[in-house]
């Protein structure tokens, strides 16, 4: 009963009306142009989201107060076919250089102006490795109790 549950990788496949070259370019150098402005870590609003080209390139954000937040770094850079980036943002929304989850993206040509994107975010079980996760685990039962209590209060159960 105590065996570890490993969360399945998040996988998304879809096609875009563009060449692989264009899709890879927009995903990487054009990262800031599509990344949702609502999603950032740290206290200051997001100014720019950056994915630097090449293996070891930094994945980070610049903020309106001048600060920078690391997110991860490029592990595989094989334009226009393949990109792997380490996502090192913990579930507590902080940068943890020891956290290793991978965002893996394949760009496959399927037509003259059509590219299939196969996206995978894997290694999610490692979110459970960090120190904060231990606290989360310890607090889980209490957390569920609180959730259920607030429900009973709202729903009158």
């Amino acid at each position, binding site marked *: *009963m105590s*065996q570890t*549950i490993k*969360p*399945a990788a*998040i996988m*998304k496949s*879809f096609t*875009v*009306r*563009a*060449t692989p070259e*264009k*899709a890879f370019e*927009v*995903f990487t150098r*054009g990262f800031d*142009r*599509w*990344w*949702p402005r609502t*999603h950032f870590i740290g206290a200051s609003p997001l100014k720019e989201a950056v994915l630097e080209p090449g293996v070891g390139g930094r994945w980070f954000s610049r903020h309106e107060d001048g600060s920078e937040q690391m997110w991860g770094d490029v592990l595989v850079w094989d334009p226009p076919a393949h990109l792997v980036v380490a996502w090192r943002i913990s*579930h507590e929304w902080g940068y943890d250089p020891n956290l290793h989850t991978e965002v893996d993206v394949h760009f496959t040509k399927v037509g003259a*102006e059509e590219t299939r*994107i196969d*996206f995978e*975010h894997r290694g*999610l*079980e490692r*979110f*459970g490795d960090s120190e904060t*996760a231990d606290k*989360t*685990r310890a607090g*889980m*039962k209490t*957390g*569920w109790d609180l*959730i*259920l209590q607030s*429900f009973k209060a709202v*729903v009158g*159960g």
Partner: protein
Amino acid sequence: MANNLAFAALADPTRRAVFERLADGPLPVGELAEGMPVSRPAVSQHLKVLKEAGLVTDRAQGARRVYQIDPKGLGQIRAWLDRFWDEALEAFRAEVERETQDSEGEEP
């Protein structure tokens, strides 16, 4: 965001009862359904919703599926990321196609 989904999943009283029974320990569907005022398929349906909300996980044990509350809370993280990436990748797709159209428009 994961919390919102979890809250919605628990808003149903029967589903909440299913969840509370699992809070006491892992159970297969059959045993969960015993003592519940609803049918086994109904319990399965509730488990499906709870699973999608990241509140419970399941695994095969012999021929049975055993359900339990996600011990690490990883299900919630996963559920959050899953929806997050949907949103981010849709924004990516829209941007690529917008730029492709723009560059086509610039051609003589």
